[in-house]
């Protein structure tokens, strides 16, 4: 019925309304700093979509966010919170880098594939540790992932200061903690003459894969099941610890792959500023937000990552143009997150009401999609 349709659409618009509301708050903050908000937001837009390069940068940022977001989707569906994204990105990137530095003579595409796989695997292991500790040693995953993030960073600093430091740096005596540039052969193909590379295609491919995995395969079914009811899962013959580890393993795998792709696609070398964020840009955290904006649904996470990527990219442009303290952008992003999560409940309860309008006319397709979310 028409009326219901309208209500459904309106309901769908709630998060967007919240998003705009947050921008409005930001407007005030900007105005208070004595800057013309209109100019600022124009800059924000241009920074994200203003030019080919801007769009490319937006998508490049979104790529990593998407990989993390996908990992988060799986973890969330399994009922665990993986805030170890930062560490998993670092580990994935590092291992991919090391592979490329160790076997520079392998044919490019072979090396790329191996590097990506190794990145994926090591991210998986880093995540798997948290899962393993939770499943078999009752160690809460929030604690373990936070700790593992730091451990990864210090490990990275060690490697980059010594074992895999760029020989040139030693020669020059400037000791910059970074590796040599990776062989050109392992640069991910660029889609257009910008930083935009194959990564985004791979990411979207995996998004679809994760969707199919979670809702079309038996393993996905089980992962979603342990996320909802552990006793019932046991009674249904599911080895709960095993699948908990698996969920974390896969979650970490996607994030690790994201890290590897960031290296092969964007930086072509590994470096550190002493923290993880210099390399990850805090994607390990922002990816969680992307996943939420995407309703914890792999496909929804695609546009969500793009939106967030645009926001972060545009924000820097905004700083450049109106010269506001960079931190203001952080505050603004925080506001946006809060407003959107805050509006979630409103959206849900609205959706339930719309549901209530009538129970007739089930269209199985439309409905089963609903159940997915």
């Amino acid at each position, binding site marked *: 019925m028409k009326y219901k349709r309208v209500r459904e659409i309106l309901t769908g618009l709630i998060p967007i309304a919240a998003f705009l509301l947050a921008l409005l708050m930001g407007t005030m903050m900007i105005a208070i700093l004595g800057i013309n908000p209109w100019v600022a937001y124009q800059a924000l837009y241009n*920074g994200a979509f203003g*030019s080919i*390069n801007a769009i490319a*940068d937006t998508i*490049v*940022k979104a790529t990593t966010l998407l990989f993390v977001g996908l990992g988060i989707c799986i973890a969330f569906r399994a009922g665990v919170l993986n805030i170890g994204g930062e560490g998993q990105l670092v580990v994935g990137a590092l291992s991919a880098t090391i592979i490329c530095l160790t076997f520079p003579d392998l044919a490019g595409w072979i090396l790329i594939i191996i590097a990506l796989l190794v990145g994926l695997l090591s991210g998986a292991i880093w995540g798997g540790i948290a899962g393993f500790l939770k499943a078999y040693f009752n160690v809460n995953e929030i604690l373990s992932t936070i700790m593992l993030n730091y451990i990864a*960073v*210090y490990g990275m*600093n060690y490697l980059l*200061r010594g074992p895999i430091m760029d020989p*040139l740096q030693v020669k*020059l*005596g*400037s*000791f*910059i*903690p*970074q590796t040599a*540039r990776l062989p050109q052969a392992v640069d991910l193909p660029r889609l257009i003459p910008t*930083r935009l590379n194959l990564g985004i295609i791979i990411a979207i491919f995996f998004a679809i894969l994760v969707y199919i995995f979670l809702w079309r395969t038996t393993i996905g079914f089980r992962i979603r099941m342990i996320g909802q009811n552990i006793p019932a899962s046991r009674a249904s013959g599911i080895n709960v610890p095993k699948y908990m580890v698996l969920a974390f393993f896969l979650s970490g795998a996607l994030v690790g792959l994201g890290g590897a792709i*960031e290296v092969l696609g*964007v*930086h*072509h*070398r590994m*470096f*550190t*500023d*002493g*923290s993880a*964020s*210099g*390399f990850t*840009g*805090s994607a390990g955290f922002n990816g969680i937000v992307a996943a939420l904006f995407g309703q914890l649904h792999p496909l929804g996470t695609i546009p969500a990552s793009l939106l967030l990527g645009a926001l*972060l*990219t545009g924000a*820097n*442009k905004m*700083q*450049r143009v109106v*010269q506001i*303290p*960079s*931190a203001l952008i952080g505050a603004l992003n925080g506001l946006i997150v809060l407003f959107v999560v805050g509006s979630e409940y409103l959206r849900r309860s609205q959706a339930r009401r719309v549901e209530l309008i009538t129970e007739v006319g089930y269209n199985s397709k439309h409905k089963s999609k609903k159940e997915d979310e």
Partner: protein
Amino acid sequence: SAEAFRVALIMPSTINDFAWSQSMYDALLTIQNEMGKENFQFVYSENMFVVADAAAAIRDYASEGYNLVIAHGSQYGASLADIAPDFPKTSFAWGSTANVFADQGITNIFAYEPYSEEGGYVNGVLAAKLSKKDIFGVIGPIETGDAKRYTEGFKAGIQAVKPNAQVNVTWIGSYSDVALASEAAQTHINAGADVLTGTAQMTVGAIGVARQRGALWFGYDVDQSALAPKNVICSVDVDWVVALKPMIDLIKKGERGGKIFTLNLANGGLKMVVNPEALVGQTIEDIVKGNIQVKVEK
């Protein structure tokens, strides 16, 4: 009138980090005051610790036709090498390093590099002379880059004066962990050190401790005496102007890059800023107040 010279600066921390980034920001302000706003304008992007974002900024500035784009962070080198070739008309500067990517046939990148070790050496000598306990504490971010060089220099300075003095070094593992830096200072003092030094912005925590526990402090990057007027004896002020001025002149002459500028004591790129308040000032004050009687044999 000829149009103004336009500079864009990208830095990893903030313009008020009291270290690396602030020192460069101050330098540009100085130049602007000399040349005048109409002839010299600059914009900056701070907190660009995310290298990907910095790269975007560099590219963006370049495409907006700035005369000089300064990538003030060693982690930016790689991105710079990618971007510079696309903007042959723009000059880029990168620090701190001695690499202009000539090997890659790039011609529009300048490099600047402070001989941090020289400043460190001077501080070391002074420290050695002033120390009563001959135990010294160094607090650095991660053992690399300028921090490493400064520390090596500081050690050398100590050794030169007191070959068997003891220099304890701690690395905080981050540029921002103020709490750990201050705890490191505490530990150094507990271990008997009476003179401390260190680099990067998290050392403000350590300076606070020196101030509280009456240890001497030797600063780096900028004149840090404001943080502990009674304790900061001398700071190495990295005066980037010394590198930037000639750089700007070259660009005006039509050069685009290829040159490495070093900042050292010889060219005044490193300035030893002695804090008049501490020690010197203290002594003067004491004499004036009569706390110290200076007797002379007639």
